């Protein structure tokens, strides 16, 4: 364990397989711990809210583990938080998954399900499972400068597994867009110190690992501005 490396809390709310997230963190030189303890989260240099599974169950587990206020407090402190997949969706105000559920409300917007029929009347396969491309919103080539997506090509492939997608209230929060069938949606967001991805960077090959690498570098610079 390298003491100067950023300490990352991978927030465990008992719903998902977190080992690949931990491996990715360690691969890029972060000390990562899978934890359900609010103190561990609050004391970390950075936190990752991962997740696969149902929105309602996730919020219930976060409540029961006393982690809802911890995550909100962590974000308020200004330290970097990364959301992945369901972890992205949980940051939003509400989801319609199996009835309306309140989310963490850190980012204004809502979470909706992919329709089962597209605008041409054809059936859409839900969930989306597999590789799809990410794009800069409005083809703005500068949008990914100074973000963890630095060095990623517009149109790069990432690995997705999801049935729901986000609709942020503020388009300026949108960092990437993705099109599934005929639906174009926000596939990552950047909101102050919070970055979150609908795809799994830790499952997205060498380019996905680059995102972890950039985020780790950002954290190292926060710890030691002289780097």
């Amino acid at each position, binding site marked *: 364990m390298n003491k100067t490396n950023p300490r990352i809390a991978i927030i465990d709310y008992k719903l998902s397989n977190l080992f690949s997230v931990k491996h990715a963190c360690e*691969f890029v030189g972060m000390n990562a711990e899978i934890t359900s303890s609010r103190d561990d989260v609050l004391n970390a240099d950075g936190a990752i809210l991962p997740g696969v599974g149902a929105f309602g169950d996730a919020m219930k587990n976060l409540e029961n583990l006393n982690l809802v206020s911890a995550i909100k407090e962590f974000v308020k402190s200004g330290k970097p938080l990364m959301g992945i997949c369901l972890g992205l969706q949980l940051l939003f105000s509400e989801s319609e998954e199996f009835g309306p559920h309140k989310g963490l409300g850190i980012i204004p917007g809502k979470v909706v399900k992919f329709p089962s029929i597209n605008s041409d009347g054809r059936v859409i396969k839900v969930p989306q499972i*597999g590789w799809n491309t990410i794009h800069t919103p409005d083809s703005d080539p500068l949008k990914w400068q100074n973000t963890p997506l630095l060095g990623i090509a517009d149109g790069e492939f990432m690995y997705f597994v999801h049935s729901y997608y986000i609709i942020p209230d503020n388009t300026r929060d949108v960092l990437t867009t993705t099109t599934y069938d005929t639906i174009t949606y926000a596939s990552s967001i950047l909101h102050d110190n919070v970055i979150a991805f609908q795809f799994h960077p830790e499952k997205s090959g060498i380019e996905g690992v680059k995102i972890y690498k950039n985020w780790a570098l950002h954290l190292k610079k926060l710890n030691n501005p002289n780097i």
Partner: protein
Amino acid sequence: MKKGVNIRIIPRLDIKGPNLVKGIHLEGLRVLGKPEDFAKRYYEMGADELLYVDVVASLYNRNSLHDIISRTAKEIFIPMTVGGGIRTIDDIKSVLRAGADKVALNTAAIKNPEIIREAATIFGSSTVTIAIEAIKQPNGDYLAYTDNGREFTGVEVLDWAKKIESLGAGEILLTSIDREGTGLGFDKELTKRIAAAVSIPVVACGGPGKLEHIYEVIHESQADAVAIASMLHYDLIGQGNASAKYEGEGNTEFLKKKTGTFGKITNTNISAIKKYLFEHDIPCRYRNE
């Protein structure tokens, strides 16, 4: 063509003990090298997922994959499916803990189909792949077998596939035992029947010997993904950079000859497959630069 769904190319790594092996009709296994070396190269070359199968696990009731998986998971960041000898919910848990993202079940699901529902409820549908090993019967029907095509079950493949879907599995790995390892091409009829009958993804496996075979099973039979072994493994062996190390268990005669070619199988690599598919209008994870 299914719009927007990118076809996945999945190297299949059959494991026996510490070694990567390959047989014909899943029999006569020869040692090809260390699985970690092959996995790493495939990852770097753009594999969309990896599939590990412990091919002797059912025979000996052992699962030696855990160590290989946990070592690989630390440096390979694409989805990994693990099959062979997984019998119980606890087995699934331990394979996932080792770093797998999905499990492939065959024998356990045939013996007790309810395990599909149970596993899908606990781990999510996208974690549960059901492997079907099919053998064509003289009357044209396909029946499912277990234990690398050795054990007759009497289960009809089409009905079984529909049941697998209704029980909540996320994907079907469909292997033609007749074609496996032969290079004669996928069983297109088998794949077409199953892909048309279910709406979950079908991974075609067994038989490709040239690029056209891969194109055909996607274009004509509507496979959502293809699992490929020989074409990729023999190519790496031919380059001599992945097979230098292996442990002395099993039949190593093939490796000692260092020919790197085999029968009807044309060697290729993942980039070449992707390029070929891209040029034939099959959407896949390929960037034309």
